[in-house]
């Protein structure tokens, strides 16, 4: 049995994309890895309320990200928004994490899409885009309500609950239809929202598809099997 995580190929807007079980999207032809909602320094954001959530989330998120980059041999990295949890998060990075982050910026060509959480903050040296068209695929943080494009977005942190033979499991997932891909959140401390929530469901065609992140592979199901 093959124990290496395997990806799922997805034809979208005339391109072939790969959904990775790690929760990232890889576009081989462009050598581009896409990740959304890192929410770096979410842990330390609670400190001001006297809640001392362990601070290792940034370190862990970056190390998982580096592992995927290494595996895919990507050259470009597209951060699809909410990369930092708030506008001050970058300044809370401890020495090691700041070093890891600047290494990332040095080693890869970073494409920064702005999210709502950073409130306009952009790390030094990067250019920020509200949205970006790459070969006819539109990347933006929050999906547009009326969408005519092939659009890839994040923001909603989708997850799905599968009920089967009296048991239930809940996992992060990609949500796709003919014109949209909504990415799962990649951040270590990020929570999620069920795809059946109107906020997500109303964006999608009646027949949409979920791709759940398992440990070793992507599990793809039509939305009709949910609840």
């Amino acid at each position, binding site marked *: 049995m093959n124990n290496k995580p395997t990806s799922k190929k997805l034809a979208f807007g005339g391109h072939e994309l790969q959904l990775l079980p790690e929760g990232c999207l890889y576009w081989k032809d462009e050598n581009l890895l896409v990740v959304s909602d890192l929410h770096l320094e979410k842990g330390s954001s*609670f*400190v001001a309320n*006297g809640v001392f*959530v362990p601070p290792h989330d940034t370190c862990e998120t970056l190390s998982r990200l580096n592992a995927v980059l290494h595996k895919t041999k990507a050259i470009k990295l597209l951060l699809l928004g909410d990369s930092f949890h708030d506008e001050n998060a970058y300044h809370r990075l401890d020495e090691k994490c700041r070093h890891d982050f600047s290494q990332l910026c040095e080693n890869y060509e970073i494409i920064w899409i702005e999210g709502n959480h950073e409130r306009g903050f952009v790390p030094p040296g990067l250019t920020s885009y509200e949205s970006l068209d790459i070969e006819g695929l539109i990347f933006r943080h929050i999906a547009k309500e009326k969408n005519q494009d092939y659009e890839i977005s994040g923001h909603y942190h989708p997850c799905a609950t599968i009920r089967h*033979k009296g*048991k239930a499991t809940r*996992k992060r997932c990609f949500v796709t239809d003919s014109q949209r891909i909504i990415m799962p959140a990649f951040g*270590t401390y990020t929570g999620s929202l069920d795809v059946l929530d109107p906020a997500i469901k109303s964006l999608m065609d009646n027949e949409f598809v979920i791709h759940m992140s*398992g440990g070793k592979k992507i*599990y793809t199901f039509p939305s009709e099997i949910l609840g």
Partner: protein
Amino acid sequence: MSKQVHEYKDRADQPALPKNLESHPLSGWIEKRGWSWHPHQLDVLKDAQAGRDVVLIAPTGGGKTLAGFLPSFVDILESLPPEHKLHTLYISPLKALAVDVHRNVGKPIEDLNLPVTFETRTGDTPASKRQRQKNKPPHMLMTTPESLALLLSYEEAPEYFAHLRYIIIDEMHALMHSKRGDLLSLNLSRLATLAPKAQRIGLSATVADPINAQDWLSRPGKGARVELAQSVKPKIEILTSKNRMPWSGHMATYAIPEIYDAVSDADMSVVFVNTRAQAELIFQELWKINEKNLRIAMHHGSLDREIRRKVEEKMARGELDCVVATSSLDLGLDWADVDLVMQIGAPKGVSRLLQRIGRSNHRLNEPSRAILVPASRFEYLECLAAKAAISRDYYDGVEPRDGGLDVLAQHIFARACSGPFEAKDFYEEIIQVWAYRNLEWEDFEKTLGFVMNGGYALRTYERFARLKINKAGLYQLSDKNFIRKYRMNIGTIVEAPALKVKLRHKTLGTIEEWFINKLSPGDTFYFGGQVLRFEGLKDMNVQVSKTKDGTPSIPSYAGGRMPLSSHLADTVRGILGTEEEWEALPEPVKYWLKHQKERSDLPDRDNLIVESFSRNGKFYLVAYPFEGWNAHQTLGFLLMRRMQRKGFRPLGFIASDYALAVWSLKPPKNIEDLFSQDILSDDLEEWMAETPLMKRNFRTAAVIAGLIERRHPGQEKTRKQVTFSSDLIYDVLRKYEPDHILLQAAYHDAAGGLIDLHRLSAMLRRIEGKISYRELDKISPLAVPLVLQAFGESISREDSGDYMLEDLEHDLLAEAGMDDNE
């Protein structure tokens, strides 16, 4: 260390009344009612007057509460404390009990017009009354451990408790060796500092280790103990039904006609069950055949508090004939009118069974009557073992444990709320507590650091620290706003996240979120004695409607599953291994064991029987350790991993309290190796990382320690509220801080509880070299119950959801006429 022990063989050796009691108005009051002082009451008084902390161990009834209050009553009249000074603190694990004791203690005070004030204070006390009590406490205050913790967190605590003389702890056996007990005993040590003259009096049901109860209660070197044996043994029968006793299952519905007959014959009965699902089912079944229109009610922890309170009131007024109840009625008010206790399903532990039986007939010299109803043949053996243990006066119970670091963290925060403290002094105070006597300074320091700023030497974390060291070198709260936060989060009872069940606008009770997650709209289930249809979630409430369906589609939800106690397990193995003992067994059970002996082998006190056979192309491996469900569950997961590595291709397993079975595609080999002790090092670590059991323990510890806030049922998630999945934190800590105090706390709890490593490792040691392995050509009689059960509730290869997704994918592909090797 001197210890005072008194035991009573009979009640004739009545000591003379001490002078100050002879002339006490209470003696006249007792006499007027035709009563007299019991020797154990007088001995509690004597020991208390000698300045000792006294534990009174006695069965229910016999004036235990009065014994507890007696020293206080004598002292309070001799040296009347100033008005509005607290003299006596009574602590009960149940609010209802505090209220009841308030009423009982009030009777003589009011009859005799004594100048003593007495009040209750619980979570239900109105805020205005609580405020007044804070400024003008009564002489006697009846309260709960949580309310005590709250009182101690006030800055005025030193003044409030300065005149305290007696602390009475009721139902002490239900508090000891639990997190709730940890918190209470830490607070007792606080009181010992604030009110050095205050003495403790503990009231306990009979426990396995009375000396330990004394140690748990007393300040070092000050303990005494009074023991009163059960003068009349309860009369216990095991029910025989004309219907066939099932091979497996827990529901005992086969015996419903006989249960109904017994209930009809009694004046008032309590039918105890082990799970809420059982309560719902037995209740339904009894009503189906209720031709005599008996007044049968139900009581369990998921039902709305208001509904439960009504049942209790009706019982107290004698307006019910029968109550079907779970452990929610294990403690509480005394019901002298109950003349029959039934236990449906195996009793699981001797002490718990005895306490349940003790709920009936509270007269010391009349026997209580109980009927045990085994749900399966294995359970029959267990009932027999329990009966034997009771006739031999054997008790089991909760194992003593060291206090948790999560509870310590909460206590440190509480201490800071009440004012600045010196770390070393505080540490000295804490290690006076029995459960924390082994606490190392390093662990205390780490926990203190956790409370301060999470324990992280990071700029942001230090800047917002909750505690700071002031100029005098004392630890103090950095912001008074934290006090409110602490008070919101007080206590150690952490319920699984639960949602309210609403029938239109009426709240029926609560159900755990994990159960609701399994439901789709349209599914039906039993709740509160009716079949309900799940309509959906609305505003975080479970909306249901009534349905006429007789059989619910989702039959049960578990909860409160108690594992078989070591002692009962040992006795059951003893019965199995000794043919002479089989005389007491009914024919079908005897027949079953005889066949097992012919076909395979029988477990005894030392060995481990392991069988293998093949069935429908699968290979079954069945072992009979009798170590309880929790330990078997852990062993099952570990065996699966090991078998997977060895290439036996295991598919699933099933565990019961008595045995476990694993099935695989290839025949397992080298059985001795499979069960070797190193299974606890190799595979355990990996499994612990992903098992939801550990995550559940971690969540509890994180809530108690104040890292994440508790969610109250029905409380809506708001954006502002800091809710955080503890699972995410768990994963990160395991990787980055494997020694974190909350992981320590979770591991400590799991090892003795849900994962039960203690029993598992003891078992693996015990059976080394004593495995009796049988290769059979077909299933053995002893394995039948387990394999039957496997159809219903087996556990798949992996503990994570992936296996399920794999399975669903496979099913869908098969449905579409494809195989999944594309």
